[in-house]
């Protein structure tokens, strides 16, 4: 019975079926989505940990893999992330009361001067789906805002995103400031104009060429 719920939920997330009302994907139109199935599963006694580990994380792993192999593209990935988000809403109380343990906390933001968020959003949703708590600071995030978030979450890992060549240079001052107040805080950077060489040159601990690579790096540092 539980396995049935988990398989159905995993399928909803993998193929981006958010809820009953959503017309996507066409072959699942008119069927319950991640929202309804999660609710039913919890009522039927499936544990939140089982839902997270055996449905959501498994499905998002498949999604990330398909994306990195160019089998799916940004829209499909965002729909999967939205489906996962619809499920996650029902799990929030269990995270809050400690019933379910996350892998860690990830503070995320687009660097100051940069207003782009599609890459940041995509990565944030994928990281959440990989079992992390994500604190999204938004776009155009100033140094002080990153430092404030680290102060409140001292064990968190930090992710900084940039889309523009003019703003990627703002990442170094952010990393310098973070390392000066919290030398043990790990920082990962990502964004279209970046490269591994650039990430190393500005003192980042990690670089994600795509979401899957970033998640693998995050999982490695908590392994």
């Amino acid at each position: 019975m539980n396995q049935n719920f988990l398989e159905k939920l995993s399928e909803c997330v993998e193929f981006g079926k958010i809820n009953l009302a959503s017309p996507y994907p066409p072959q699942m139109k008119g069927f319950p989505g991640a929202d309804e199935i999660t609710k039913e599963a919890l009522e039927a006694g499936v544990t939140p940990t089982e839902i997270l580990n055996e449905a959501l994380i498994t499905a998002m792993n498949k999604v990330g893999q398909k994306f990195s192999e160019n089998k799916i593209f940004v829209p499909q990935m965002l729909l999967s992330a939205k489906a996962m988000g619809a499920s996650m809403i029902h799990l929030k109380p269990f995270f809050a009361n400690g019933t379910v343990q996350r892998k860690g906390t990830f503070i995320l933001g687009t660097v100051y001067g940069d207003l782009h968020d599609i890459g940041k959003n995509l990565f944030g949703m994928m990281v959440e789906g990989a079992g992390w708590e994500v604190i999204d600071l938004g776009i155009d995030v100033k140094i002080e805002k990153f430092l404030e978030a680290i102060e409140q979450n001292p064990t968190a890992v930090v992710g900084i995103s940039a889309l523009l060549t003019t703003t990627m240079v703002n990442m170094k001052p952010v990393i310098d400031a973070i390392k000066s107040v919290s030398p043990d805080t790990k920082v990962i950077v990502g964004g279209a104009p970046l490269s591994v060489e650039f990430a190393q040159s500005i003192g980042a601990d990690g670089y994600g060429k795509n979401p899957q690579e970033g998640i693998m790096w995050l999982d490695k540092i908590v392994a």
Partner: protein
Amino acid sequence: MNKFINQILQGSNVEALPIMTHPGIEAIGKSVREAVSDGNIQYQAIQYLHDHFKTVACTSIMDLTVEAEAFGATVNLPENEIPSVTGRLVCDEESVKNLVVPSLEKGRVPQYLLANQLAAANITDKPVFSGCIGPFSLAGRLYDMSEIMVGIYIEPESIQLLLSKCTEFLVAYCKALKASGTQGVIVAEPAAGLLSGEDCMTYSTFYVKQIVDAVQDDSFTVILHNCGNTGQCTDAMVATGANALHFGNAIDMEGVLKQCPSDVVVLGNLNPVGVFKQGTVESVREETLQLLQKTAGYKNFVISSGCDLPPNVPEANIRAFLETVEMFNI
């Protein structure tokens, strides 16, 4: 056959066309904000590049906000950074229905038309290519880029209506650019590169083709730029009927040349950041030569940057690029 396409296909040399305006803006001592707001200044930047660099054509600024601003979107115009759209202008079926297709008098459009008119009138020894955003990329700036990605599956009718309105405006804008006297337009459609090939065909090609059909002829070329494409959208780009296709650095140029018809001019794709901005004169020479060697034998190839050169590219790197092409042709 189109004059520019014929020139490339019949020529014996590989031609170079880096997409650039920022080096010109910097050289004449103006800010990005001044150049994107004042047609005279933008023209002076284009003229400077024409006078100082041997390229096959001149290009205007790839500013992907001017059209969204005409629709009413709020635009952030930093002093020396590329402008960007902030917020979301439309969010659902009703707001899309109520969206009015603007006239060409709105926002900075008249300044862009002026820049193109001045460039076309004063640069007569080589083609001048105007620039505009593509329909899907414009719709994404009005609807929010993340939301439109999901919207094509959740609210396809609203997105198609929005795309029709964007296309109506872009057709009028491209007709006005053509009337300004330029020899073509680079239609920048980077957001479509985030879609699958099938979705690119439905949500970009169908609309870009309307622009191509409205303005492309023997004297006016449409160059479709899609730097987001990693290979899945190439057939959809070809299907637009554009005379020329411009590719970003994420793609294998040799593979693209094999895939595209030989009468379509194919341009690309040196990394504007990794090679032009962050590279050294030596690394620029090396990367340029490698690309020229890989693509040798394709008469429809024009070597270019994979996208608009960003601000603060060393002039020495642009010279190294052009000199390498010149040496290769000897």
